[in-house]
């Protein structure tokens, strides 16, 4: 039985998004692992991504391209990463970073992101077949420094304080 960190339950500091997908687990898996399919959804709504390269093996790399809409500048943004663990129809684990079009990792600060943004994140996609035409998909980003709930709670408190301060002026 594997004792790698990826088999531990998510901590409250991990960011998790879950969706029910109206398709079989085979199609959901293809969506993430077949470049022809990835290109259909890796981009802003209504835009296919212009290119996608996948070397689907543990230690293999991927390079995804996303093109901003014309009215937002139309520039290409690249993400690269390495597949860490592949369990077909169940689990896809990889690192992900921003990169240039050759797949060289770039520092988020170089494109204007705050210093706190991690240069590389570890992600896990989990696939759970519910029915022949239904799959539960979970996207997890690991090792986040602080719980999102804590951040929301403090931000909420601070916003109410600020609003109160403005209304009292």
């Amino acid at each position: 039985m594997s004792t790698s960190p990826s088999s531990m339950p998510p901590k409250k500091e991990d960011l998790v998004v879950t969706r029910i997908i109206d398709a079989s687990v085979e199609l959901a898996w293809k969506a993430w692992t077949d470049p022809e399919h990835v290109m259909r959804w890796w981009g802003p709504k209504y835009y296919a991504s212009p290119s996608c390269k996948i070397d689907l093996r543990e230690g293999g790399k991927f390079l995804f391209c996303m093109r901003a809409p014309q009215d937002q500048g139309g520039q290409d943004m690249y993400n690269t990463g390495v597949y860490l663990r592949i369990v077909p129809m169940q689990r896809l684990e990889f690192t992900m970073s921003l990169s240039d079009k050759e797949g060289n990792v770039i520092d988020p600060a170089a494109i204007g992101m705050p210093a706190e943004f991690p240069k590389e994140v570890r992600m896990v996609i989990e696939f759970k077949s519910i029915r022949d035409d239904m799959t539960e998909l979970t996207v997890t980003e690991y090792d986040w420094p602080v719980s999102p709930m804590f951040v929301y709670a403090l931000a909420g408190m601070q916003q109410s304080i600020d609003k109160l301060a403005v209304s009292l002026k």
Partner: protein
Amino acid sequence: MARPTSTLDPFAAVAEPRRRRVLETLAGKELPVNDLVGLLGWNQPVVSKHLGVLREVGLVSVRHDGRQRLYSLQGEQLKPIHDWVTNFEQFWGERLDVMNDYLRDMQKREEKKSPK
């Protein structure tokens, strides 16, 4: 994931559970150190140490009121962290919605090809 331990990094500051307790205790209030010591139940040097780090990253500010020094929460420094969280959820939420629309169509086409 090891992060550089710069004291000028809000992420590093709030990664420490005790500092999160200080922030939670301060939120919405303005308190002198002694009140914080009473509320947190730690000794004063420990409270002061954590307040010092939080002041350094701009999460806590001080106001002098007569002879008292009153500490309060400054939430603006949490904004990058807050934005990171909301951006993640927005980004992946949108990706998965687009993916779902695409896969739903593919599923329907496959079912038409081989009806059960």
